[in-house]
């Protein structure tokens, strides 16, 4: 009986801990995504009409920037609704 109760408490604690950790990193994760998007725009901006760095930087970094490239192009899709994105990050319904 005591063992079952202890196990349940441990599970509850772990779940609560996991939820708290996820909540804690949500905003930082969003910040990382934004920084990666800025990085992508700085390096690959020429593809979306933004002044780019000397071309060889784009050429050298592009092969390792698949993730940032995808991110930048998906951001273009949500660019018309920045408030909606902000509310979803801040968990406002």
């Amino acid at each position, binding site marked *: 009986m005591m063992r079952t109760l202890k196990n349940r408490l441990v599970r509850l604690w772990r779940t609560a801990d996991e939820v708290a950790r996820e909540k804690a990193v949500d905003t*930082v994760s969003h910040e*990382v995504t934004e920084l990666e998007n800025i990085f992508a725009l700085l390096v690959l901006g020429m593809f979306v009409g933004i002044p780019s760095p000397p071309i060889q*930087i784009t050429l*050298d970094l592009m092969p*390792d920037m698949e993730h940032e*490239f995808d991110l930048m192009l998906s951001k273009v899709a949500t660019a018309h609704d920045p408030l909606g994105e902000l509310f979803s990050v801040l968990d406002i319904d």
Partner: protein
Amino acid sequence: MNTGPEIHFFIGKGGVGKSTTSALTSLFLAASGKNTLLVSMDPAHNQRDLFETDFSEKPKQVVQHLAVKEIDTAHWVGKCLKETRENIRKTYLYESAFNLQDHFKVLQFSPGLEEYALLTAFEDVLGRASDKDAVIFDMAPTALTLRFFSLPNVTLVWLNQLLTLRRQICQKKEIISKIRIGTCEMERDRIKEKLQSLIGRHTCLRDRFLSEDSRIHLVMNVDRLSFSEAVRIKQRLADIRIGIDRVVVNKTQPGKPLGALPETLEPHRLAVFPLASGTLVGLQAMQAYLQVQRESFADMLTRPLSTGQGS
């Protein structure tokens, strides 16, 4: 101790005689027994007219101790794009790489590729010139040459900014990893590593331009336009801390004064070459001119004393 070859750049306005002066200097060095390579960086490639023979990317021996090569900008642009395209194919998912091809086509028309191609060719030339005593670069007209010299600086400004941003991203990712799984388990960031390696490469190039072994000779004529452009070139290079070694005043005529030129462009740096009596085309004509002007060339290649050391 630097054991690399001495490097001479001949720069200046179009038509002032950069190609002729660099060809004559190369012939002079070769005649002095120095193993010399003359590299034509000017897309106009006048060296083939001066030596009356065709040149290519492969150095061609023209006289004892002297080989000449031409930089084919299109070849270097194509090489850069090909390498990038292959790296993209290797690292991107099939679908992304497939979609990227459309984006990629536009890159070959990007401004800045020409000077980058020249910079890559410059690195390649020096990488293969360990057996040379001197490498002479006949540069393109002013605009392209100035962009060539300032490219490492401009690139370093961008790279340092991008590295700062990348470090921020990596730090935040470390925080996330620490909170999520309790430990900091990070994969190595390839982009950060690449940025650091690019900073190293461009710092080397910038230092190469600033090094004592690299000497820049500014060629000009005694006319107002050429003089004004020479002053602007000197100023633009000074902005990126690159100094002029010699100001070569070409095609001077007896009895025609140099005017305000010596005061503005430092008299101790001047090297004056008179207008040749005939056309300086062909090995024979150039060697005949060199025979008469031997001392002036020897003087030009001697390091000028700074104003503090005397005149």
